């Protein structure tokens, strides 16, 4: 082969790669665009100015250094919940229970954060983070075990476990772990100690760095390790996985545990990096937004990061929007729901853009039985 040929084939490969990346990215972009467009129509119909609303949304999320910090803070737990859902998708599981796992993570990390005294920060903070993550892992293992041993579909069991998690954490925050300070009348835990706080460094949340680290870790686990190969094989074709000697039952439980671990870590970060305590209602929606983020990021660990930043920016900017454009911040939920619709129904966008390749299809539905 001559030098010239080599070079031209390299160029062709590069071009091919660029095209593929563009194609992969185009669907999420168009999905977001269409969702914002329909969101604008809804805003207009309800009598608000879409322009004012969107510019306030932008100002509130990227308009100033403080706004950007807020966006990063909002995005941090979202990266985790998005990773949790995406990871489970890779293993053929739909973890709608990221919400519940996150709640357990948040409250356990809060408990470890306020109850343990006298530890240096470099031990206390990681300990609380890890404790929350493990709580999430244990809570995530339940639907995994239910699925493998009884055939109960994880979609309904995880939703039910979400309600159980909400009730349990409510009870804890309103009962044994309630903030005893005399001024407190609501259900919430005491503030965590200084040593358990995950700080912002010059407006940049350390938690966000941690979330990126996790994304890399998850990518490595899925793509480069034998365990990741097992998880993906079980996700794609459990029969073939069993045929080839993989332990399907163990892998399903492990997948749910790891997914729960990531979600629980998201809860810990939320507690230790942002809220500073556990308070019911502060984390609602994070797990569900994880679904949107995972699908928007095409279930890829690296796709999750920009998706979480987008959703985080919306969440961060929504209060500014409510304040200066007088638009109920739930419009953000509507837009996110529409994004989810267009990402899930990407057939529409593929048709609009005339993309032929069928891409990576997430397939979960197999009925409620076995």
């Amino acid at each position, binding site marked *: 082969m001559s030098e010239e040929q080599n070079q031209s084939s390299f160029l062709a490969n590069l071009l091919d790669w660029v095209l593929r990346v563009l194609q992969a990215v185009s669907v999420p972009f168009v999905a977001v665009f269409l969702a914002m467009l329909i969101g604008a129509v*809804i805003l207009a119909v*309800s009598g608000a100015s879409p322009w004012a609303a969107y510019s306030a949304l932008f100002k509130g999320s990227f308009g100033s250094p403080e706004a950007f910090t807020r966006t990063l803070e909002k995005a941090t737990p979202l990266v985790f919940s998005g990773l949790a859902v995406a990871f489970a998708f890779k293993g053929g599981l*739909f973890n*709608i229970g990221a919400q519940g796992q996150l709640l357990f993570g948040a409250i356990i990390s809060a408990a470890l954060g306020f109850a343990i005294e006298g530890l240096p920060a470099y031990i206390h903070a990681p300990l609380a983070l890890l404790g929350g993550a493990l709580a999430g892992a244990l809570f995530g293992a339940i639907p995994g075990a*239910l699925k493998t041993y*009884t*055939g*109960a*579909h994880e*979609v*309904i*069991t995880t*939703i*039910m*476990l979400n*309600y*159980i998690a909400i*009730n*349990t954490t*409510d*009870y804890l925050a*309103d*009962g044994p772990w309630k903030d005893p300070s005399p001024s407190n009348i609501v259900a919430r835990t005491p503030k965590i100690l200084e040593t358990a706080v995950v700080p912002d460094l010059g407006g940049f949340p350390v938690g966000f760095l941690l979330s990126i680290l996790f994304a890399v870790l998850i990518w490595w686990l899925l793509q480069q390790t034998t365990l990741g190969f097992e998880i993906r094989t079980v996700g794609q074709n459990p029969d073939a996985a069993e045929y080839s000697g993989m332990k399907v039952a163990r892998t399903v439980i492990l997948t749910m545990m790891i997914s729960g671990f990531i979600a629980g870590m998201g809860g810990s970060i939320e507690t230790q990096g942002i809220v500073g305590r556990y308070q019911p209602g502060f984390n609602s929606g994070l797990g*569900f937004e994880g*679904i*949107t983020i995972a*699908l928007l990021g095409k279930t890829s660990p690296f796709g999750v990061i920009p998706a979480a930043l987008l959703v985080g920016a919306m969440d961060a900017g929504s209060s500014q929007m409510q304040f200066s454009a007088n638009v*109920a911040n*739930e*419009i953000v*939920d*509507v*837009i*996110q*729901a*529409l994004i*989810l*619709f267009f990402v*899930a*129904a*990407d*057939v*529409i966008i593929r048709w609009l853009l005339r993309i032929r390749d069928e891409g990576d*299809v*997430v*397939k*979960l*539905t*197999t*009925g*409620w*039985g076995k």
Partner: protein
Amino acid sequence: MAISQSWKRYFKQWGALTVLGFFVIIAVGYYYLKDPQITEAVLASAVRQATPLVLGAMCGLIGERSGIINIGIEGQMLMSAFIGFLVNVWTGNLLLAVFAGVSTGALLGLLLAFMSVTLKIDQIIGGTVINIVAVGLSGYFYQVGLTTKGKLAPIPLGKLADLPVVGRALFNNPPITYSAIILVLVVHYVLFYTRWGLRTRAVGEHPRAADTVGINVYLMRYVNVIIGGGVAGLGGVFLTLEAVGSFERLMTNGRGFVALAVMIFGKWTPLGSWGAALLFGMTSAIQTQIQFAGTVNIPHQFIGMLPYLLTIIVLAGVVGKSRPPAAEGIPYEKE
């Protein structure tokens, strides 16, 4: 021989539930003798608590019998509850409000059918889309402080309402509760005794077989999922117009998902689902009773968990496995 065969079949499928039902009846009789008033109140409350569940379950099974898994029942109910509520607030008309709610459910059914039949996207993700869209839209357009103009009131059915034990529970109900009971019977008849029902079940079990004898699989699925959506919509407006009289964010509170468990518990049959829903309703009614009486000192959060725990237990197959429609969840591809 033939008879004993069919009895065997019956017991294999329904044995556990029959025994369970038998115990419930004995327990009800026992408590009725002890305290007729409270027992009647609990029974009546159970029937009404069961209403949204049985309507949700009916929506689920109409869809699944035709091969479409509907996990968006929660969203369909929530959105219908909200629209029915809004229409009532604007017009003051209850009937129009019910109609609006049912139409909303049907419309979301159409959306689900479009996603799963035409676009062939994963049905569970499609249902999740509906749930999230419903939470978003109802949350955005909701304004605090509105209440309905009037509520659907109980209509006692003459002397029947005075019957002991079941009178109050069955014959002194508001209209949607009555409709739910009638719907159970209608769906049972249509599903098992009519041409439409035979075709629906065929499409859910073996769509290609149905296709080869000239049945339009896509059309059957569309129509069933839309009708199912309407039924879920009725369950939604039950909450705002019959039970509560106002709307709150997220007020369905998981009933749409519990309804799926009810459907599975009822083995994808209307009558079975009704029995299962009554059992769930009974749990809620007793739970309320306990909280009222205040005799047992359990944190309310734990009592509140009961239906969800029960759902998990049901799904874990403690009461025996059953077989879902064979083709559910699989998009049908004409070759």
